[in-house]
């Protein structure tokens, strides 16, 4: 069986020579009898891990998919710098404009799973904390490597989660860029986690076999018994009586997890569910007007001057030929109306009805029928004031240069005089206050 194979491959040999060197003192938290809670033990750790792992895997998968969605090989799209060894992989994957809600669902799941995982992660760390203080500190070289990888696992998981939580609140007390730190922290997390799962899976199987998977949840507080101390270093040697049953503990953790997940879901699905996002960053209402929906980057903070967007604004088209169009001229072209979401990397979305000129019509006007790429320049002079769209995105009939939303002219905060809106495109690439479109290739 797989478990036996893993046990033989990754089990620690009890006969191995202990490493030389000083040992921690036999005092305080280094003593096993310091840790009194009778709830700790391999069963609780295994149960929490069984709930935590799927959520982490969803986060990891959606996180990497998000990186693919940014099409960082195009133009200035990258926000993590050079992808190094992974560049060929990302270059080969072009984000399609197929299902319009793909990015919204992906990022929604990322933040929902991420927030829901946090109470379980904290509970898991509480359960195994006696192992931080175990004696002897280094039983063998293999044991030492396991402890190093655990340091990486705990550090990376805390780092990735807290940077994520602070990022969605637009709060950056740290002096480094969020995106590369969160992204590369996830690699350390996944590497250390893979090793951890491989060496711990036999212990999880044994814990469930010996105590059952849900059987301990049937015990009430008075009948809560500690796990035997020989089952794991996290099990107590001198437990006190339980102050809460295991199911009370797990229930409280589950309540926190479900609550956070629902809050994140509220801001992701939006519409009638938005009030669920009580503490979620995008759980507030703007109003009932056509432009009253979630803003991402106000005109003032983007440094847009009203004079730039007034009557003198022209859309510059480049391609086979160069031409300029005023807003009135754009409005006289055949317009299309599409219902499309803005889906932010921070896990919230909002779906609205947009009216504008299809991008591929503008491409034809500029003399490029089937562009390889479309470069978009905003009036906003910032790192993300430009976007490069791929072929699928530029030629999709639903991709628009939007002029109106929900029947009214775009507000300044929503990108007046014109913005890009493309199915499944990450929110930040739906460039606002568009100044220039360059159709390249074909």
């Amino acid at each position: 069986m797989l478990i036996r194979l893993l046990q033989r491959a990754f089990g620690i040999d009890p006969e191995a020579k202990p490493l030389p060197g000083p040992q921690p003192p036999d005092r305080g938290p280094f003593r096993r009898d310091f840790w009194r809670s009778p709830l700790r033990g391999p069963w609780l750790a295994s149960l929490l891990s069984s709930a935590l792992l799927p959520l982490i895997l969803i986060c990891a998968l959606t996180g990497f998919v998000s990186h693919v969605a940014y099409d960082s090989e195009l133009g200035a799209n990258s926000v993590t710098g050079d992808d190094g060894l992974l560049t060929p992989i990302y270059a080969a994957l072009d984000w399609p404009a197929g299902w319009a809600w793909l990015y919204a669902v992906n990022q929604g799941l990322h933040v929902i799973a991420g927030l829901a995982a946090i109470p379980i992660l904290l509970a898991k760390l509480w359960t195994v904390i006696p192992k931080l203080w175990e004696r002897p500190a280094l039983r063998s070289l293999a044991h030492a490597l396991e402890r190093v990888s655990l340091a990486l696992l705990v550090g990376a998981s805390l780092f990735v989660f807290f940077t994520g939580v602070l990022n969605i609140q637009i709060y950056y007390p740290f002096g480094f860029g969020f995106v590369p730190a969160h992204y590369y922290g996830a690699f350390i997390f996944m590497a250390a986690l893979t090793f951890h799962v491989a060496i711990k899976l036999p212990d999880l199987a044994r814990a469930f076999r010996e105590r059952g998977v849900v059987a301990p949840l049937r015990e009430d507080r008075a009948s809560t018994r500690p796990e035997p101390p020989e089952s794991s270093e996290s099990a107590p040697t001198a437990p006190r009586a339980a102050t809460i049953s295991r199911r009370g503990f797990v229930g409280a953790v589950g309540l926190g997890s479900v609550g956070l997940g629902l809050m994140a879901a509220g801001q992701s699905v939006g519409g009638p569910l938005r009030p669920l996002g009580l503490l979620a960053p995008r759980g507030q209402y703007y109003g009932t007007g056509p432009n009253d929906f979630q803003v991402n980057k106000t005109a003032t903070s983007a440094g847009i001057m009203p004079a730039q967007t007034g009557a003198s604004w022209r859309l510059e088209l480049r391609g086979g030929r160069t031409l300029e169009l005023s807003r009135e001229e754009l409005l006289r072209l055949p317009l299309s109306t599409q219902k499309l979401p803005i889906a932010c990397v921070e896990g919230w979305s909002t779906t609205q009805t947009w009216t504008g000129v299809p991008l591929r019509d503008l491409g034809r006007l500029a003399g490029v029928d089937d562009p390889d790429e479309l470069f978009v320049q905003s009036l906003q002079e910032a790192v993300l004031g430009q976007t490069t769209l791929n072929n699928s995105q530029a030629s999709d009939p639903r991709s628009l240069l939007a002029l109106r939303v929900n029947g009214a002219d775009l507000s300044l905060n929503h990108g007046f005089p014109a913005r890009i809106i493309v199915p499944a495109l990450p929110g930040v690439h739906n460039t606002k206050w568009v100044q220039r479109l360059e159709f390249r290739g074909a």
Partner: protein
Amino acid sequence: MRRFSALYGSSPAHLLLALAALVVSAWAVVQAFGQGPPLSLTKWFVGSILAHDLVLLPIYSLVLIGLLRVVGGRGAQNRAEASPRGLLVLNHLRVPAALSLLMLLLFFPFILGLADAGYEGVSGLSTDPYLPRWLILSGALFLLSGLILVVRLVRGGASTARGPSGSAAEGPGAPPAG
């Protein structure tokens, strides 16, 4: 094989997988440091472990001891002597307290008004509503917990022979809307 295991402490597969994990981690660190700044990244990575293991975790225990003294009264020094009733009250206090503090821990930039500048520039809205929202959510959690506690005390659910005595009766489900 046995000699390798006696020297190393496990099989070659263990060593290979450990090294693979370390190599991937080293690559990620190099890539991240390339985006910089390395000192800040290291400080926050290590700091998060220290802050959690050496600050947050001890706080859980200290709060529990404090609550036990308040609720258990005399004899609560030895937690085994706290009465079943006292423990029921304790749990109906500490579960909503823990959830409320968890929300504060996660959303403190909004609740304490620290993220106003960034958030306003991005969304056009203020973070002011978040403090009242958190207070209302916390209040609702305590209220719900209190109601369930009253029901259980009235039903005599504190006796060891009958029914659940943890907070699982609250069950998973949507939190009360603020």
